[in-house]
């Protein structure tokens, strides 16, 4: 069977001949290694490799998509995708125009993380696990490590031919403390765009994490209700991603008149100090960074909210055309098995001037919520869970409370952000899920922010 480069070359000319309005093919090969600890035991360690490709075709606004990992009979795959598109399409439609690109983008990392000997990775994880287990009260721990390297070749009927390589490293550690029938856990997630060294100096953080899990056993639960809540950069980053970011993905909006009305550009969404950005291009080298998206569109820095007003959104070529806006290079696919859909990249709240002490200074009774445990959104409604929480009393951080769940209406909550700190920090430990494609490497971040009247779940 051919390798992915020759498969892409073969299809490059085949696509220009196809009868579809537009067609593209994407080939991918990757290698990964994974290590998982459950408790003190190294539970699994393994290596995997994958290769495959897909063809996507557009006819009269309808899409056909076929994925495969047998790289022969390629012209027949094109024919299948075109037939499917023909059976789907019925209208008139043109994608937003972009210049065809020929480019080769190397991964930009020094050492491929997959090739680092397993013994070295295992040594590091052993050190972290040792630290967790040294804390009295710890019942068990979980560690998951993974790295990958991948090469993607993209060709389309307009003459683009783009080869991009990237690497990825992630680690998630969880410390679980138990006493009587009480169980509490605290986690730590980190990642990098292929730089293994970025996760080798977490010893201090791991110790604090394990200690926090034990402390939670004694912590009371906050009373449910409305509070002034201060979010740390990690949790604020999750908030901006989950609650607002997903609403900026145009595929949610473009065919729905009412949502278009709700997300009308120029509308006031927050205070004047509020700027929200999604950018795969700048800063570079984050987990959500790339030069071209999976439709071969060059990535740009997109302001979603500027001075509190909605000014932009994230597009694929299709949504940009339908909304008569410019493509932003946000069409991403998790791997060759999926068509690209509109996704975030690196999403963050721009830092302003306030210090953390000023942010909490005038709060009589509030909650300082840190770290994240999870988050989901259903359009206007969001829920996200903090990994740690503390009461704020009379302008000072006070006792620890059980991890809380925050929930609310995104529009009201954005309006209620009334203080934005200066300490932007990007969290690279997350993965985003949408349309069955999970986890896609993204990063998100923020400085500390303060939200008035935020609803907190509890007793």
């Amino acid at each position, binding site marked *: 069977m051919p390798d992915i480069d020759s498969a892409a070359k073969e299809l490059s000319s085949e696509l220009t001949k196809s009868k579809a309005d537009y067609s593209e093919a994407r080939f991918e090969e990757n290698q990964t290694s994974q290590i998982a600890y*459950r408790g003190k035991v190294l539970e699994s360690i393994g290596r*995997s490799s994958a290769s495959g490709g897909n063809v996507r075709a557009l006819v009269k606004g309808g899409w056909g998509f076929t994925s495969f990992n*047998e790289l022969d009979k390629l012209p027949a795959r094109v024919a299948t995708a075109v037939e499917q598109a023909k059976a789907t399409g019925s209208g008139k439609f043109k994608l937003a125009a972009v210049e065809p690109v020929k480019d080769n983008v190397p991964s930009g990392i020094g050492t491929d993380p997959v090739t680092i000997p397993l013994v070295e990775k295992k040594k590091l994880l052993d050190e972290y696990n040792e630290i967790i287990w040294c804390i009295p009260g710890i019942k068990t721990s979980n560690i998951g490590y993974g790295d990958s390297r991948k090469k993607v070749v993209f060709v389309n009927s307009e003459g683009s031919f783009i080869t991009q390589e990237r690497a990825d490293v992630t680690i998630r550690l969880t410390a679980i403390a138990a006493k009587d029938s009480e169980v509490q856990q605290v986690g730590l997630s980190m990642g990098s765009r292929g730089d293994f060294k970025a996760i080798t100096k977490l010893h201090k953080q791991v110790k604090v994490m394990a200690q926090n899990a034990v402390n939670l056993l004694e912590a009371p639960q906050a009373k449910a209700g409305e509070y002034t809540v201060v979010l740390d950069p990690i949790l604020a980053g999750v908030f901006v991603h989950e609650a607002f970011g997903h609403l900026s993905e145009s595929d949610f909006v473009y065919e729905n008149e009412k949502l278009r009305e709700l997300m009308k550009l120029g509308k006031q969404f927050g205070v004047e100090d509020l700027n929200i950005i999604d950018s795969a291009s700048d800063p570079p080298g984050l987990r959500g960074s790339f030069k071209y998206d999976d439709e071969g569109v060059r990535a740009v820095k997109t302001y979603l909210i500027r001075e509190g007003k909605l000014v932009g959104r994230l597009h694929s070529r299709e949504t940009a055309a339908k909304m008569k806006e410019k493509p932003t290079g946000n069409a991403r696919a998790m791997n060759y098995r999926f068509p690209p859909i509109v996704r975030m990249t690196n999403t963050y709240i721009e830092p302003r001037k306030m210090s953390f002490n000023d942010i909490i200074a005038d709060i009589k009774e509030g909650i300082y919520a840190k770290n994240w445990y999870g988050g*989901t959104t259903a359009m206007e409604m969001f829920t996200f869970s903090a990994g740690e929480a503390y009461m704020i009393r009379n302008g000072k951080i006070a006792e620890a409370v059980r991890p809380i*769940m925050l929930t609310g209406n995104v529009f009201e909550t954005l309006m209620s952000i009334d203080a934005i700190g200066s300490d932007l920090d990007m969290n690279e430990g997350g993965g985003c899920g949408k349309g069955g494609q999970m986890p896609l490497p993204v990063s998100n971040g923020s400085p500390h922010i303060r939200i008035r009247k935020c609803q907190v779940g509890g007793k």
Partner: protein
Amino acid sequence: MEEILARAKKSVQDAEVYQVSSEETSVRFEANKLKQLQTSQSTSVALRVVKNGRTGYATTTGTADSARMVNDAIETAEFGQEAKFTLPGKEQYPRVDIYDPAVEKVTIKEMVGLGEKMVAAVTKSTPGIMCEGGVSRGMITVRLMNSRGGFAEFKKSFFSMGIEGTVVTGSDMLFVGESDSSCRPLTDAKKIIDTVLLQLERAKNQAKVTTRKMPVVFTPDGVAGALILPLLSAFNGKTVLEGASPLAQKLGQKAFDVNFSLVDDPTVDYRPGSRPCDDEGVPSQRTPLIEKGIVKNFLYDLQTAALAGKKSTGSGNRGRGTLPSPAASALVITPGKTTFDAMIKDIKEGLVVEQLMGAEQGNILGGDFSGNVLLGYKIENGKLVGRVKDTIVSGNVYKILKEIAAIGSETRWVSGFCQTPPFYCKGLSVSSKG
């Protein structure tokens, strides 16, 4: 496969090759219109070896290079977990019907027709609703062979369809939806349509609840989403072995309401989670987890069972190529005697919860959950009066399931993995904004 096994056998004590091939065709609707047709073909191979008493593994999707796979697996075996298990030899498997050749014969046109029917019925009932949905069919072939002569091979067909609707009014959004799946073709969209129309009808008005403790009726979706999830980790043999399961010390003891019985049964015909053997070649069996409130069994794969001094319950699951891990395949809850309507009639002020958002984010191990009601209705003096919004329901499943006010008589499959009736529970924390 045979080549990989033969090559591995030359340098290791034990080896097992597991291969999954799948083909899937789906039609996808967006914004009330047919949007995309999709096909996918995929094959993946996993190799597990035992060398010097330790486990190693490697997987490949796509072109399998057998020499490289064997080398990768042997490299990882150096650090792998000590292998306590013995791979099964040739086994007798129960007959479980999970393949229906009719699935492959359903035409794209028929699939599009089912989708159009669902969209048409829902949009007709509620002008302005935006529907997404789809119909999929496919086939999976599983082959497994090991160095002890164990061999399994089976085909499974699957068919699923579903629809989700969103109604936007000002900045208010309502979500409804329903799906169904089977190993046989689904030919009738009526069941799904009726459920969605009922949801829309019940959500027509909005209602306010007070912040206090009150009874909650969980519909089958609500039970599966909010109550069953924490139990899945508690009954996992691994969690039990580590002592992290709140049920670890409760085997043989009463920990739940006397009317609550739960069984994991992968031998039910034509359920997507069913199979004749697990992913390690251990025969499928019916495993009672809770019988009349008493904790009966935990779920084990080979390795976890060996470590715990138990027998595998045929619950070894291995996603695509990962090492096996215990997991439930098809959960069945014994229905009770109370109808859903009788539950509602019994309640002065309370809630019906269909979907709880964020329920899975809490302290799952400890059984705490807390979620925003994505779709739920208020009960007032024995009647459903409208949809609730900005409302959080929280509780602890172990406390809630210790005394269940009533278990429903009408049972149904949710997401293909759990068959459950509604549950009527008392004293949940409800907190509402405004």
